[in-house]
């Protein structure tokens, strides 16, 4: 794998990805390419296979068909639920990927504390176990865990769905800030178009049946540079005028083929 940093080289390329669970096709012929440093929001109705796609791209799930080409150095991942080790303190949880990388204890500690500072996780909370933390703090720890390894790409798999509106907003700002500061690219899975438009350079809409990408729309302006009015107008425009977003709010958990 070559290390290229030119903006023209895509950091992540998915080619002809297909996947089936127990014989039922959930993804078919998905092609997607992300430019280096680009934050793309992947949206689609619930059950269309966006999470599976993110898991395939991150190497958690092996695809049945297709190729994943990762041209970034290292990725982090934030899941919908925090997925913290219940028996380890917040500090040890944030340092967990560093432990997998085999870093010495002292460096793990320092980098975990630095990552915690970036997501505004209080130092006093670092010695607590996940069970003692609130939902928001747990998700902060999960984000810090993804940032601790200094990634140049981060997968977000509907990370803020379970949080309340105010907290969600703060977490989104945190991600925008971190992405700008550390210049990482990201694939951000969400079913919330408002969130997608706030956070991303580009919105990618998945086909409702998981058969490929239905289309993509560049979002004008920079993430973090759009004020609330702009975000509302963009979302309203997408929903009312753009046929691409027609099925975005269809809810069909167990769709029949």
């Amino acid at each position, binding site marked *: 794998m070559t290390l290229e940093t030119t903006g023209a080289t895509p950091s992540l390329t998915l080619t002809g990805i297909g996947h089936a669970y127990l014989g039922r096709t959930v993804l078919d012929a998905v092609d997607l390419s992300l430019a280096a440093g680009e934050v793309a929001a992947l949206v689609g109705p619930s059950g269309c296979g966006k999470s599976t796609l993110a*898991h395939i791209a*991150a*190497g*958690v799930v092996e695809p049945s068909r297709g190729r994943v080409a990762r041209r970034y150095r*290292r*990725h*982090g*991942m934030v*899941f919908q*639920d925090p*997925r913290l*080790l*219940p*028996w*380890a303190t917040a500090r040890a949880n944030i340092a*967990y*990927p560093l*432990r*997998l*990388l085999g870093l010495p204890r002292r460096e793990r500690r320092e980098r975990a504390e630095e990552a915690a500072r970036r997501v505004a996780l209080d130092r006093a909370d670092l010695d*607590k*176990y*996940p*069970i*003692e933390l609130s939902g928001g703090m747990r998700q902060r720890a999960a984000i810090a865990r993804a940032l601790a*390894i200094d990634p140049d790409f981060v*997968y977000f798999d509907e990370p803020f769905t379970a949080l309340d509106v105010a907290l969600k907003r703060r977490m989104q700002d945190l991600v925008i800030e971190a992405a700008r500061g550390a210049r990482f690219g990201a694939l951000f899975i969400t079913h919330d178009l408002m969130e997608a438009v706030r956070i991303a350079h580009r919105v990618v809409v998945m086909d409702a049946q998981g058969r490929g990408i239905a289309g993509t729309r560049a979002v004008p302006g920079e993430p973090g540079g759009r004020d609330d009015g702009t975000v509302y107008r963009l979302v309203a425009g997408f929903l009312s005028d753009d046929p691409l977003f027609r099925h975005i709010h269809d809810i069909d958990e167990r769709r029949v083929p």
Partner: protein
Amino acid sequence: MTTGRAGAVLDRLGRVGQFLWSGWAGLAGLALFAALWQAGHERYGDFILPAPLATLAAGLTIAADPAAWELAGQTTLRAVEGFALAALAGAAGGLAAGYSPATMRLVRPILTVLLGVPPIAWIVLAMIWFGSTDGTIITTVLVAATPVVFVGVAEGAVTRDRGLDDMARAFGAGPLARLTTLGLRHVAAFLFPALTVALGSAFKVAVMAELLANTGGIGGALAAARSNLDVAEALAWVLIAVTGLIVVEYTLVHPIRSEFERWRDAARPWGVKR
């Protein structure tokens, strides 16, 4: 980081103190048991049920005799050997079964058969195979204790959080790293209770096998007490066996387990821990 270290030491001292303090509750329970025992003694008389204090005195007389220590040591050694073998076999098998559903399907019926055979039958078989030797006792203990450990570990391995496995995989953990950092840590929480039960049954089965196979040890002493109709001495030997078990459990098994379960305690409000 000096404050952090001092804090950790204080924290540990606090937990040790809490553990010792919780001993009062255990003592209260034992005192209640002794009271019931005394009541039984007063109702049924000396021959059927000697008084707790008389038993204690008989136990102390036995404890003063070096030969008795040798007998107790013999039993302990056999029980611990069988227990260690059972822990190894059960843990390895349980882990394999928990991670591989095919192994689980193969092993489950075997386990049912093993558990279905009464321990007494194993003693008879082992006596035929090994004669009146340590082998008889150790085999019986092994057969009795392995399924307990196996089931506990397999249960732990099956209930591991696959979400955490996926998380580790997303951060580039291979199968071995996932096993050592997630799998074993989760299984440990199931392993320790299983080991406690297995250790208890190892002692009990060892004494029983000794009694039936007439191979010395505490069981042999109990057999002698029975033939002499010396109820106080028989009870004293039981007392000694139970004391040994309690000592091992509270100095070894419980401290290690509470170390693994610290995070669970963290969620409980103050005052209702343990």
